[in-house]
């Protein structure tokens, strides 16, 4: 099983007619996933890779019953596309685009909250429930179905970790790339809470990094007993000096706050299994599930 997406999720891709849209459809088709609809205003009535394209999300929802949206629209059209998806109650909505201005992120998050829909991202590679649903630009061959949730602040490292788990014989229930920005929709504590509630998830693997308070808030949930499933954590950036802005806008530690070392200590004290190298996550998780 899974959370947020499952076999019943009907995938819409906004911006499907662009180059990235074609690439995502190809990734999906290769592994037997499908999108039921695409939306590109002005291109209604056409189709891409067998997927019907509509002018509006409302039409797409009416005619295909799409329920969740992957937004591949570039920054210039992002606000309009995301607000349209929120208005039509697509849930979840994945925002892939990197470099979203702060005020826009805050506005979109606020509108999604008002409409009670889950926003994933911005700067997210998407979400996958192996064998059930792919809503993102992820290579499905790296993800095996199973009982472990992966929550990652890095897109590339999510695939890398899922692959490491698969090589140890561990499959995943749902993997979410929550995005590398500091202002994001679903964050690590919230995603872990969903994994905790999912009856078919038995353990949770996280990729954290310096900056934000997500790992500290997760530690608090574990400490309070609100997360009881085993949490295996790798936090990157112990060797990255504080006070510097790296690639991910959220990966910035300030003085002692938000450093990798502090996050690892806080999580370990709370009872999470903290590894020094992500490559040992597969083996450790397998032992924990025995």
């Amino acid at each position, binding site marked *: 099983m899974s959370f947020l997406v499952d076999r019943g999720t009907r995938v819409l891709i906004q911006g499907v007619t662009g180059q990235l849209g074609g690439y995502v459809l190809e990734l999906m088709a290769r592994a037997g996933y499908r999108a039921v609809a695409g939306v590109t205003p002005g291109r209604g009535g056409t189709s891409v890779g067998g997927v019907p394209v509509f002018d509006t999300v409302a039409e797409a929802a009416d005619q295909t019953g799409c329920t969740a949206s992957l937004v591949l629209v570039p920054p210039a059209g992002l606000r309009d596309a995301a607000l349209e998806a929120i208005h039509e109650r697509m849930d979840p909505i994945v925002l892939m685009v990197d470099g979203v201005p702060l005020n826009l992120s805050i506005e979109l998050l606020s509108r999604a909250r008002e409409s009670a829909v889950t926003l994933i991202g911005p700067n997210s590679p998407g979400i996958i429930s192996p064998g059930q649903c792919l809503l993102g630009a992820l290579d499905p061959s790296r993800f095996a179905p199973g009982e472990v949730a992966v929550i990652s602040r890095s897109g*590339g490292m999510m695939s890398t970790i899922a692959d490491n788990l698969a090589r140890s014989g561990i499959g995943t229930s749902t993997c979410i790339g929550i995005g590398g920005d500091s202002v994001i929709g679903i964050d690590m504590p*919230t995603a872990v809470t969903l994994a905790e509630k999912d009856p078919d998830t038995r353990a949770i693997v996280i990729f954290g990094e310096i900056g934000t308070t997500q790992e500290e808030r997760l530690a608090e949930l574990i400490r309070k007993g609100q997360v009881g499933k085993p949490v295996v954590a790798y936090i990157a950036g112990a060797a*990255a000096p504080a006070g510097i802005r790296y690639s991910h806008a959220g990966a910035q530690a300030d003085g002692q706050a938000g450093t990798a070392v502090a996050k690892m200590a806080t999580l370990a004290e709370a009872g999470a299994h903290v590894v020094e190298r992500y490559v040992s996550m597969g083996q450790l998780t397998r032992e924990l599930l025995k």
Partner: protein
Amino acid sequence: MTKLLEYQVKEILREEGIATPPGLLCRSAAEAREAAAQLGGRVFVKAQVAAGDRAAAGGVRSGADPAQAEAIAAELLAATIQGMPVEAVLVEAGIQAEWEGYASVSIVEGPARRVLRFSRSGGTGFDPARAAFQLEFDAHLEPHVIRRELRRTGLASQELLEVTRTLSAMVRCVARWSAYVLELNPIALTAQGLVALDGKADIDDYSKALIPDAAYLEAVETDPRERLAREFQSRDHRGSFRYVQLLPEGATAAGRPRVGSHSVGGGESMVVLDALAAVELAPTNYCDTSGSPSAEKVAAAAELVAGQPHIEGVLFSTCIANQPLATTAHGLVDGWERAGWRGPSVVRFAGNQSEQAREIVARWGEGRVDRLRVVGEETDEWTAARMLRDLIESEEQGR
């Protein structure tokens, strides 16, 4: 995000109608003397660096007369604070205050929203979480809402209008300047109203095209390689290119060999820094080219990394990437060729087209580089870092 310097913060505050003490920006001790004479009385001489705890590090001092101001400025302008050279000082008039408090707008998480905070006490060491007034909001906050909540904290009627006016101006300011943080600490009540004695602001880099003056984000970057990377990124939007100089030329690393670092993926780049540290190698830089960049962009990055005169080796590594790595590989060897790089190198490809990418780099290396290892995802980052360390040591032994 980019941290503005105090004098820049005060410029944008004044535009928004928030008062600051009379002051002058000075780039020499003589200018500081003149400024103190012009301002009259006791002045504060404040180092303009984006350091967290500037006052505790001796970066803010007061002088009784122009001669003292000149002497302090001379010392500060020759100093570095938390590794940052002081290039200018702000000389400001002393202020008579009734009280010194705290005001800020920042981001809270879980869920991510803005929060406005105010307290009639403040100063160094004040914990914002203890502010009596805290109000969460998203885009806008009407003055009447601020006023109502301030009254609930017991703020006296005679101060209510002035505090509301200032807090409303701060809310407008963070929106206009796309700030993660705007902090006025201390903010003082004087006979003329509220005055921001100190100011900090962190501006969102992604909003560069939207803020009133993008030059504020450029003035702060002084490293020439970081500037080149940023300029390239602003010309070529395909994928991302982020470069940070961690160890400038001339900086030593406590005997550890210094190496260049170049990665694909923001998370991967962090992992690589950790892997290098684990084998006692000192990365001189951080560099990430990901999100399907052009070969030209990867080449520009590779040339910057390999062109650092103070490195003994380079580690290139990718996460399991979707981007076509053959394109990345072409860019990598082009950049190394331009930099004339022939030093010890480990190249690790994982993901889309990794086989092709390995072949491209291996073929380039033949007859050019003796100490080159090209590996795939079966070799993890820590093993790759160890390989680089071994290559560097074998070179040293061979001498």
